[in-house]
C-alpha cells in the first residue's frame, strides 16, 4: 500500500501556502500546558474514532460481498458476519460459465472497448487541447466556451439521434458507437484537463523548439506530449474506469449476447437467475470490480490529482 502515501502528507514547509502544512508547526509551539495537549489528544482520538466508524460502515458491504462470494448460497441470506468456515470456489466456477459465453468473453469485449476508448481519448483530446492551450486562431474563445459547455451537456439530449445515426450506418451490435465518439474528443472533460496541464508548461520550451525550426506537429509530439504524461495517465485511468463501468451505452447499442460487455452481461445474469444463485452473481460482480480496484490501487495518485485539480468524479 505504499502508493497510498504518495501525496504530501506532513511536509513542513514554512510558508503558509498550504493550510495543512502551516498548521503542524503551530500546533507544536502551542502552550505546553498539560491540559491543552490532553484535550488535543482526546480531540484526535474522537476524530479517528469517527473516521474509523464511517470507513468501516462504508467498506463493510464490499468486504461482505467478497466473503459471501466464497460461501455456500444459503448462507448469504443468513450470515451477516465476515467469518469464513470454508472456501467455496464453486460460485466462481458456476458463475464463470452461467451465461451463453464464459465470463472471460465479456471481459475481452469490455477490454476492447476500453482500449479503443483510451486510445481515442488520448489522441483526439490531446490534439484539441494543444490547439486551445497554445495556438491563436479565430473563433478560439467561442469554441473554447462551447467545449466547456459540452462537458455539462446531459447525454440524453443526443442519445436518440445518435442511436438513429449509428443504427442507420449498421453499427448497432458493434463496438464502434462506443469507441468512435472518443476518437472525436467528445469527452470534453479530458480536453479541459489537458488544456489546464499544458498551460502549466513553460512557453520557453515551445519558443526554443520553434527557433530550432520545429513546426507545430513537431512541437506537439516532441515537446508537449512527453511533458504532459501525468495528464495522459489521468486520462487513461479515468477513461478506463468510466468505460469499464459504462452501462447505458452498452445497454442501448449491444443487444447481441456475443457483443455484451461486462456490465450488460451482469445485468443479463441478474435477469436470468432466480434468487438461489446469488453466490455466483456475487462472484462475477467481484470479478467485474477487480480491474477497477487494481487501477485504483496503482493509479490512485493520478486519480486524486485529477479530481482535485479539475473536480469531476
Amino acid at each position, binding site marked *: 500500500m505504499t502508493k497510498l502515501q504518495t501525496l504530501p502528507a506532513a511536509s513542513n514547509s514554512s510558508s503558509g501556502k498550504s493550510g495543512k502544512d502551516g498548521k503542524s508547526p503551530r500546533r507544536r509551539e502551542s502552550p505546553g500546558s498539560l491540559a491543552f495537549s490532553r484535550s488535543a489528544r482526546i480531540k484526535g482520538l474522537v476524530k479517528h474514532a469517527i473516521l474509523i466508524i464511517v470507513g468501516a460502515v462504508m*467498506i463493510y458491504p464490499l468486504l461482505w460481498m467478497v466473503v459471501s462470494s466464497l460461501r455456500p448460497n444459503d448462507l448469504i441470506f443468513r450470515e451477516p458476519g465476515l467469518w469464513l468456515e470454508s472456501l467455496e470456489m464453486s460460485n466462481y466456477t458456476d458463475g464463470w460459465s452461467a451465461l451463453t459465453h464464459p465470463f472471460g468473453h465479456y471481459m475481452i469485449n469490455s477490454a476492447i472497448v476500453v482500449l479503443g476508448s483510451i486510445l481515442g481519448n488520448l489522441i483526439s483530446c490531446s490534439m484539441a487541447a494543444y490547439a486551445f492551450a497554445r495556438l491563436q486562431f479565430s473563433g478560439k474563445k467561442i469554441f473554447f466556451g462551447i467545449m466547456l459547455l459540452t462537458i455539462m451537456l446531459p447525454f440524453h439530449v443526443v442519445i436518440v439521434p445518435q442511436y438513429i445515426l449509428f443504427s442507420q450506418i449498421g453499427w448497432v451490435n458493434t463496438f464502434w458507437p462506443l469507441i468512435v465518439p472518443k476518437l472525436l474528443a467528445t469527452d470534453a472533460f479530458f480536453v479541459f484537463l489537458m488544456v489546464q496541464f499544458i498551460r502549466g508548461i513553460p512557453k520557453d520550451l515551445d519558443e526554443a523548439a520553434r527557433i530550432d525550426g520545429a513546426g507545430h506537429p513537431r512541437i506537439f509530439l516532441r515537446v508537449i506530449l512527453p511533458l504532459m504524461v501525468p495528464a495522459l495517465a489521468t486520462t487513461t485511468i479515468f477513461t478506463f474506469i468510466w468505460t469499464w463501468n459504462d452501462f447505458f451505452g452498452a445497454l442501448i447499442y449491444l443487444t447481441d449476447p456475443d457483443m455484451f460487455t461486462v456490465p450488460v452481461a451482469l445485468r443479463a445474469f441478474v435477469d436470468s437467475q432466480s434468487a438461489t444463485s446469488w453466490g455466483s452473481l456475487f462472484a462475477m460482480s467481484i470479478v467485474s470490480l477487480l480491474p477497477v480496484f487494481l487501477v485504483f490501487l496503482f493509479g490512485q495518485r493520478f486519480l486524486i490529482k485529477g479530481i482535485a485539480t479539475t473536480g469531476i468524479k
Partner: protein
Amino acid sequence: MSAIGELSTMTRRKGPMTKEEKKANGRDNKAAYIFLLPWLIGLVAITVGPMLMSLYLSFTDYNLLQPPEWVGLDNFIRMFGDARLHNSLRVTFTYVLVGVPLQLGVALLIALVLDKGLRGLPFYRSIFYLPSLLGGSVAVAILWKQIFGTTGLVNQVLAMVGIEGPGWISDPNTALGSIILLHVWTFGSPMIIFLAGLRQIPVMYYEAAKVDGATTLQQFWRITLPMLSPIIFFNLVLQIIGSFQSFTQAFIVSGGNGGPSDSTMFFTLYLYQKGFGQFDMGYASAMAWFLLVIIGAFTAINFIASKYWVFYDD
C-alpha cells in the same frame, strides 16, 4: 481553475481585444484547425447535429420504421397529461434535492475532520474514495439489491438487535431511499475536491482569528465556509447536473422497470423505456429536451443564487 470557474470568468471579461491578441489572431489558423479537426467533427456529428436533430424529432411522431411525421406540439402536450412522467419527475427531484445535499454534507464533514494534518490521512482518504469509483457499476447496484432486500444484509444485522426491517427495495416507501443512500455512499470524490479547497485557505486567517479570540465554530462560519464557498458551489452544480442523469442504479435495483409501483422510476429510466423500449422516439426526444431545460434552469438558478452566497477572494 475549474471548468465552471473558467466559464464564469469568460462571461465576466468582455472587453475589447488587446493589441497583442489582435496581432496574434489568425496566425496559426491552419495548424489550429488541423489539431482541432477530430474535436470539430465530433462537435458537429456527435453533439450539435444530434442535438438539433432531437429538437426536430421532439415535434414529430417517429418509431424508427416509418419516416418522422410532424405533429407540432403534440408530444409536449402529451407530457402535460402523462401521470407517469409527473411521477418520474417527482422521483427524480426527490433524488436530487435530498441526495445531493446529503452527499455533499457528508463529504464536507469528513473533509473537515480529515483536514487538520491527521495521521493516516492518505489511508482514510483512499477508503472513503473507493466507493465513488465503484458506485456507478452494475456490480455495486447488484450488491445494493441484495443488501436492502427482504432477507438482505441490512435486515440480517437489524434482526440481531431484534428489529424486523421492511423489504427496503420492495417497499415503495423505502426503495428510493436506498438508492439515495447509494448516492451518499459515493461522497468520496466531492470530499477530495473539498480537501483540495481547504488546503488553499491561508493559515494566517485562522491565526488572526485565534488572536482575536474566535471559537472553532466562529472560525468555521466566518473563515472556512466563505473561503470554501466557490468549491461548494462547484460541487453543487456538478452533482446536480450529474444526479439528474442518474440511471444505472435505479435500473438494476428495480430490475429495469422503476418499481415497486414506479417509486424508483427516474426521469431517465422513463425516457429509456419510451425511446428504447417502445421506440417512441419523438416523445423520448421531447422528454430529453425537457430534461435539458430543467437542468439548464437549475444551473442558472444556481449561478444567480451564487452571487449572494459564494465569496470570491480575487
